[in-house]
């Protein structure tokens, strides 16, 4: 189960309206490497993870991603809450606006709605943890790309925080992968999938 706390993980306070920026940041809400996909990926992979530390890491990071989803939603909301029809036209926000008005909807920067096809649950410990490390780097790259276009310091500050979290999570998953391989056959990590095979093959 989960319990909600009535606060953001890191403060977001944006006063300047900017729908153009909202449109690209939205991709971390519902895009292919966004926070929603990250959360669902980790929380789904954890069921078949064989070791307690890995169940912990996936549960906790999957939970933190929900807090990041809330931060990204807040950024998008604050960037668009006071926009005028003129702002919408100038910011190229009409396509989004006709479908969702000023609502916050999980879509990619291109407008494609959120798709679970962008995440993977393979049911193999090494495969899934490697996927998770890549996912953190993809999210880090996306935040780096957002920072190329975001010039408002009120926006850059929480985006930089989110970017730094991707780096920390990458580290934690790397440690998780090491904990897993330490328990496998060092001559062939892939001979046995601890998520499925009940006992190692005879040598």
């Amino acid at each position, binding site marked *: 189960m989960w*319990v909600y*706390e*009535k*606060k*953001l*993980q*890191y*403060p*977001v*306070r944006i*006063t300047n309206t900017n729908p153009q920026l909202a449109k690209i940041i939205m991709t971390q809400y519902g895009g292919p490497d966004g926070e929603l996909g990250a959360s669902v990926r980790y929380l789904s992979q954890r069921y078949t993870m064989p070791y307690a*530390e890995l169940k*912990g*890491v996936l549960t*906790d*990071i999957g939970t*933190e991603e929900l807090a990041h989803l*809330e931060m990204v*939603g*807040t950024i998008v*909301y*604050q960037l668009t809450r006071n926009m005028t029809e003129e702002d919408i036209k100038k910011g190229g926000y009409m396509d989004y606006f006709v479908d969702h008005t000023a609502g916050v909807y999980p879509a990619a920067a291109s407008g494609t709605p959120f798709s679970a096809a962008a995440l993977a649950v393979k049911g193999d410990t090494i495969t899934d943890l490697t996927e998770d490390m890549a996912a953190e780097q993809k999210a880090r790259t996306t935040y780096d790309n957002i920072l190329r276009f975001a010039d408002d310091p009120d926006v850059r500050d929480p985006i930089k925080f989110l970017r730094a979290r991707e780096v*920390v*999570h990458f580290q*934690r998953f790397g*440690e*998780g992968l090491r*904990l897993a391989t330490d328990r496998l056959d060092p001559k062939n990590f892939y001979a046995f999938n601890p998520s499925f095979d009940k006992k190692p093959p005879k040598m």
Partner: protein
Amino acid sequence: MNERDSMMRRIKSIDFAMWELHIFLDTHPNDTEALALHEKYSKRRDALVAEYEQRFGMLGMKNITGENRWQWVNDPWPWDITQEVENNVGL
């Protein structure tokens, strides 16, 4: 920054430090230094949250202040900008 925001900032800082230790401990469960630090921050947090809830209303599950109203549904919500919400009271 008003007093409510500045207290919230202190709670957020301590929560963040605790969370960072929490996920570090997931992959280093026998690190006694990190365990002790987590315990220390946890005590400090309890005191801060109690004070905040007493003055500004619910953060979690327990209705602390006022017996005549369910404080949870009071503004601000996390995505609101506090000052603006305060200016809108009564709308």
